[in-house]
């Protein structure tokens, strides 16, 4: 792909950024650390979404469904078995299975039909969260989700109940997810997904079973949404149905559009801007969504390819 930053510029910048993130609890108060976790979780969520949208050409409006499956899955396990590894792994696995099963039906279609199907499936999960009271707690949700210790019986048990400690769990898992996605999009599989985005017919006639590859991308995006949801549940100590609503699906869409769909870092930068802009506006008005919308429109009109396009190299 075109639009890559020079490694001479990015490598030291990224090293500084990662160092800064690891030092954050030492140099900042509770709120910036909490905000950083929200940003990291949205960044992971958005990266998965952009694998579908920016790399494969499939616009999903239902990713919040998998986010919620991850969050509820993690919460249910943590409420039953206080082990953070099990909780997060279970949430991710549940979201991956849900994405795979719904993906089988969704990836048979493309363009608006795919988008509408994913919206419908996402809202079905939202309805389940409301109505399946015995499992989800209905409108009360699941409360008291613990930040359980990282526990490997007989080997180690690390408490992460304090926010600063849980921050490192979110940070390490997010960085691992970002690194894995970076490797994936630059691999032959990532290249093939980009080919599908450019021309699914040409890709099929190059010998690629396009529908299977779309299902792979959809499942991976679901896993990323699930990881984001699974990390959120212990952070907020509660999970409620609105996290499955389509407006939640809009968050990775907005973050990705703000940051840029054709650069790897776009969704991460977009997630940062999403929370920073929102955080600034809510200090001045309760009608933050209106002003947020105005700013997003201005950003998208000013930078149609996202903020990261400023740094993109021009094609030679």
């Amino acid at each position, binding site marked *: *792909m*075109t639009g890559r930053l020079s490694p001479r510029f990015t490598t030291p910048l990224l090293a500084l950024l990662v160092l800064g993130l690891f030092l954050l609890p030492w140099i900042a108060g509770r709120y910036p650390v909490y905000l950083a976790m929200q940003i990291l979780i949205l960044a992971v969520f958005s990266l998965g979404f952009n694998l579908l949208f920016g790399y494969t050409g499939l616009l999903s409006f239902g990713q919040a469904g998998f986010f919620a499956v991850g969050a509820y899955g993690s919460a249910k396990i943590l409420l039953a078995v206080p082990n953070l590894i099990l909780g997060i792994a279970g949430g991710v696995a549940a979201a991956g299975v849900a994405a795979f099963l719904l993906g089988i039906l969704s990836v048979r279609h493309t363009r608006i039909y795919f988008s509408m199907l994913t919206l419908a499936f996402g809202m079905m999960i939202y309805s389940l969260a409301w109505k399946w009271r015995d499992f989800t707690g209905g409108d009360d949700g699941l409360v008291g989700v613990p930040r359980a210790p990282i526990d490997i019986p007989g080997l180690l048990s690390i408490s992460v109940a304090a926010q600063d400690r849980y921050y490192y769990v979110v940070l390490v898992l997010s960085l691992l997810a970002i690194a894995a996605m970076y*490797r*994936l999009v*630059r*691999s*032959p*599989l*990532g*290249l*093939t997904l*980009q*080919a599908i*985005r*450019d*021309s699914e*017919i*040409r*890709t*099929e*006639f*190059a*010998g*690629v*079973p*396009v529908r299977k*590859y779309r299902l*792979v991308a959809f499942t991976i995006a679901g896993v990323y949404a699930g990881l984001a949801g699974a990390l959120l549940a212990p952070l907020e100590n509660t999970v409620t149905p609105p996290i499955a609503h389509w407006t939640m699906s809009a968050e990775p869409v907005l973050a990705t559009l703000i940051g840029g769909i*054709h650069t790897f870092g776009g969704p991460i930068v977009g997630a940062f801007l999403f929370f920073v802009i929102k955080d600034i506006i809510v200090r001045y008005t309760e009608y933050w969504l209106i002003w947020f919308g105005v700013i997003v429109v201005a950003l998208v009109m000013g930078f149609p390819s996202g903020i990261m396009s400023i740094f993109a190299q021009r*094609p*030679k």
Partner: protein
Amino acid sequence: MTELLRIERAAKRFGEFVAVDGVTLTLPAGRLTAIIGPNGAGKTTLINLVTGAFLPDSGVMHFKSEAITHLAAHQRVHRGLSRSFQIINIFARLSVLENILIPVLSRRRRTAVSFHVAQRETDAIAEARQILREIGLGGKENVPAGALSHGDQRLLELGIAVGPAPELCFLDEPSSGLTPVERSTVLELIRKFSAERRTTFVIVEHDMDVVFSLADWIVVMNRGQVLAEGPPAEIRENRAVREVYLGEDL
């Protein structure tokens, strides 16, 4: 000559319109065939049936004696069938090299690899670079394909079509929209690939100069049926063909 493709009574209709009407055709290996006919004769639909873009309403197709009638398009590519498109169909945002790399990786069953970067697929990259050199785009491998000129995009599409190393390759109007110089380059490449890569080409063309200078065998279609087939000299003298092309100099 060894039989490569056999089409028996293939038919396809779209509503009331009969696009292909009981076509029976045999294509041997090594013979460069041109399919000609007026607009709506069913040429492109026939290619779509053979390459798997559409399933036929009736009829059967065998490629190297294997029934391929119900195989998916990508499965036919792995059997040795490839194609280009009437309207240029390339990966516009990918680089020129990456455009060729996709079919090469596909043939090597490497498209699902996710544990290392694509740049480490050195054998596939070397093969893709070789194809780029052959089609004359070796100096433009990092250019986004969408930024190429129309002529270069046609060349690139030819490169993508030969990327899977096909035994049988259908080219749908390969010289469409090209300048005379570009057209002769494409024709030369088809001859070269035909001889050196042992690919059997079937071209669909409207330009009779291209058809008669390139083809060993010509199939004439009209109203979804095969009107005539034979060597160029025979087709040129065929009265029925002349009537279909009334006013055109064959």
